[in-house]
């Protein structure tokens, strides 16, 4: 079953064409990596999927419907988690934002919402920081909190925009192992520069640079030579040189 279906999508900001004639089908429980150069339209594609931007001609379907009708089934982790770090807000309050828009109590938060938030924080290894101010965390810790927030609404699709750009190598591995775990029951779409890590975990790759080229990599996983060295040559051959 296709959870995301994009047909002939074009999008432009004023006169600059960002995406042209993009077609993409994402299946249930797929792990899709979106790669491509800066300014190639990766983040814009994500924003179109979550209806933060709207194309002139509706060309995206999420579970067969317009993106704006399925907002709660998508978890989104935005790119820059370093904005607004001075804001007086606790980690657990950030996570509980994932609940906003659900049936909510008259005042404050429900007990199960707090428990749910603590649960997802534990899942990302940040439970002990629940009462800390968000500004006191490192970039990597903050990113994990943002993932917890996205998980809070129990999404069927998780979209992440450059999730590991602020995280050290060990943290990156942890994040991707966490995503792999989550991938057992939800579809994952990740925008990333980090080709080596992405290809270890992704089942498909889309290269976006105004146009989109799709590659199924689920059967081919040997991108590492025997010494563990990442072999780019094989990857380039597979993706076709014109796209990379």
């Amino acid at each position, binding site marked *: 079953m296709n959870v995301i279906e994009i047909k002939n999508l074009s999008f432009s900001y004023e006169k600059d064409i960002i995406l042209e004639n993009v077609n993409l089908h994402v299946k249930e429980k797929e792990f899709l990596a979106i790669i491509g150069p800066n300014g190639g339209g990766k983040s814009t594609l994500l924003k179109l999927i979550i209806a*933060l931007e709207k194309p002139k001609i509706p060309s995206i379907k999420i579970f067969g419907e317009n993106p704006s009708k399925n907002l*709660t089934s998508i978890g989104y982790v935005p790119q820059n988690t370093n904005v607004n770090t001075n804001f007086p807000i606790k980690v657990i309050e950030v996570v509980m934002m994932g609940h906003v828009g659900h049936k909510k109590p008259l005042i404050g938060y429900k007990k199960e919402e707090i428990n749910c938030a603590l649960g997802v924080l534990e899942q990302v290894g940040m439970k002990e920081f629940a009462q800390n101010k968000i500004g006191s965390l490192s970039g990597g810790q903050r990113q994990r909190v943002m993932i917890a927030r996205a998980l809070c609404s129990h999404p069927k699709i998780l979209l992440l925009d450059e999730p590991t750009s602020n995280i050290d190598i060990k943290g990156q591995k942890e994040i991707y192992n966490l995503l792999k775990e989550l991938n057992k029951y939800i579809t994952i779409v990740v925008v990333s520069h980090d080709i080596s890590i992405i290809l270890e975990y992704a089942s498909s790759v889309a290269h976006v640079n105004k146009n989109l080229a799709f590659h199924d990599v689920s059967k081919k996983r040997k991108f590492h030579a025997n010494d563990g060295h990442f072999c780019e040559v094989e990857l380039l051959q597979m993706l076709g040189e014109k796209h990379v």
Partner: protein
Amino acid sequence: MFEALSYEFIQNALIAGILVSIASGIIGSLIVVNRMVFLAGGIAHTSYGGIGLAVYFGIPIFLGASLFAVFAALLIAFITLNQKHRSDTFIGLIWAVGMAIGILFVDLTPGYNVDLMSYLFGSILAVSKEDLWFMAALVLIIITVVTFWYRDILAVSYDSEYARLRGVSVKTFYTIILVLSALTVVIAIKIVGLILVIALLTIPIYIAENLSNSLYSMMILSAIISTIFTLTGLLVSYSFDITSGASIILVSALALIVFLILSKIIKYNN
């Protein structure tokens, strides 16, 4: 000093000071975390147009200023939400045009001789029983809105993009915050005046923000700090017979300097 408390106008001024402080503490927090200080300044000055119109047409000044300020807030909300490019230019324009309208209508009013300075810099002598009811009603509305819609307001303020994604109407809450700011500015005019109101909406809030780890504690702390500054300022104003707005702002600024020095020292010692 205590005999002063028996005068009705002093009692009214003190109650007004507390009510304005609660409103400006809560709304000031929202203005600061949403980076709307410039917008609030624009609304404050534009409301002078309402004062001028009210004087000319002989309607209550509070009413004229409120309607005009709310209209300015809606206009500014519309511009900032729909015209991202150069919206600050238009706010500057509204700011100046509002004031110009006010001055024009005051000029046109025959035989008008009420002290204009009192609207620009505050006048505690002028607080009536009706003013107090208006202020109390506004404080009640503000507390109701931030209590029942706290999490929506928090989401919109912290991460509006994500709030939109979770189905919160960012435009609605953004507009509500601006309209409440407009009404807060109008009641604060009585105490500090429309030129100095921006200091009341920022100085206590800045101090509170540095001492809080959540938005609601920032709001409560802002209201408390604001009340202390306002009452101290009113005391100074009465004792030395100076304009209330100026003394409240200078008391606040002095406290801010002390706060900044103290936090530097504490940081240095750690």
